[in-house]
């Protein structure tokens, strides 16, 4: 399950930035990938659709690396799993 999340994030970044997937790793920073604030917005928009999640604005402001995104989404989905319906 965690690996498939990493895979989803990496492939979304590769699509948004039109990069070969092998250029994108868990340790890549957005700066290294040439991602600016609008690319980040587009990426989060894609991931919200694919994973059926909602990323709050405040969380969106702090992501700077691929790992930030993956861990942020894990936190969100864990929170959703434990919160009351």
């Amino acid at each position, binding site marked *: 399950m965690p690996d498939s999340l990493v895979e989803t994030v990496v492939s979304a970044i590769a699509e948004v930035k039109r990069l070969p997937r092998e250029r994108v790793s868990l340790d890549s920073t957005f700066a290294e990938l040439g991602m*600016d*604030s609008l690319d980040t*917005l587009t990426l989060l928009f894609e991931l919200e659709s694919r994973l059926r999640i*909602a990323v709050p*604005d*405040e969380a969106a*402001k702090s992501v700077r690396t691929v790992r930030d995104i993956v861990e942020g989404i894990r936190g969100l989905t864990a929170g959703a799993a434990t919160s009351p319906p």
Partner: protein
Amino acid sequence: MSARRVAVTGLGAICALGRGVEATWAALSEGRSGIGPIESVDGAGLRFSNGAEVRDFDPARHLDSSRADLLDRFAQFALVAAREALSDSGVALTAELALRTAVFTGSCLGGQSTQDAGFVELYRRGRERVHPLSIPRIMANAGASQIAMELGVRGPCCTMSTACSSANHAIGHAFWLVRSGVAELALAGGSEAPFSPGHLKAWEALRVIAPDTCRPFCRDRLGMILGEGGAMLVLEPLEAAQARGARVYAEISGFGMSADAHHVTQPTVDGPVRAMRAALSDAGLAPDQVGYVNAHGTGTRGNDSAEARAIREVFGPRRASPAVSSTKSMHGHALGAAGALEAVATVLALHTGILPPTANFTAPDPECDLDVVPNEARTARVEAALSNSFAFGGLNAVLAFRSRG
């Protein structure tokens, strides 16, 4: 031929702070914010809930019903503000003067709520047609055209659409037409009505709207708050104004523009610096003559720190810098109308000697090291003032005004 001096002799405004200049200025000078829960649109499912809407606006009180049908809310605001400004100026718009009168309006979005409603009919309700007046309601020049038609203005009329700088570009160009002698009178300003479900969703996706309120230059700022409304100024040669014994609120004395040529949403320091310097140079003002800057001050992290650096670069170290406030903390960010509402605020600050504050201020941000007139208006006679507007797309427009006092 030496350039003419240009007077501001009439003001009109409608916004979240009130319907009319008097109510608007009363709120601005008391530091009262018009921001509150959005009521005109069902906000269910939106990540933000507050806006600065015009409350209790009944088009039927201003327009007969056939006319009201033809005007989107944004054009209604333009027309209502223009009527107030012209009446306030006391100008008699003779047939001869009307031929040399200009109308310049700013609008970022045109009649987007009409378009949004039409799309709901088509795509959600499965209807096969939209209202036949949709196109004349949606066109961004509807405000300028309706003003010209109602008042019989027959000179240069147009609409500028440069996102959040629209009204400043419109007022600046109208000022230049009057100064150069191309026009003998101008009605200039802007209007906007951004509250529709589809449009609010687009702002939500951009993640720049504050969940609470607008706190420009503040450590705790979380983004902007959308506003709506319209404002118009009457501009005429100072000599003509004096000859007819008009009240002159202030002179409009300079206009400066620049492009960042950098990024569609990230601001620069250099672009605003060059626009402010261009406005000062156009006005023949030295930086130390400026005692007040009505900032663009959106309340976003990016704008406010870049604007603060730009202001300090133009005006020098803090002790020498002018008072700076963002009235968006009260009337919200009215996009294509923003510069017009802020021009009214700036002109009245010069005229009354009261600087409107930056409302909703909690704690200073070291990244915005300015004298931001926190929360309470300040009594101060200042010689000159700037009003800044910086648009997405990196298009900057700054107006300079001089006090008559």
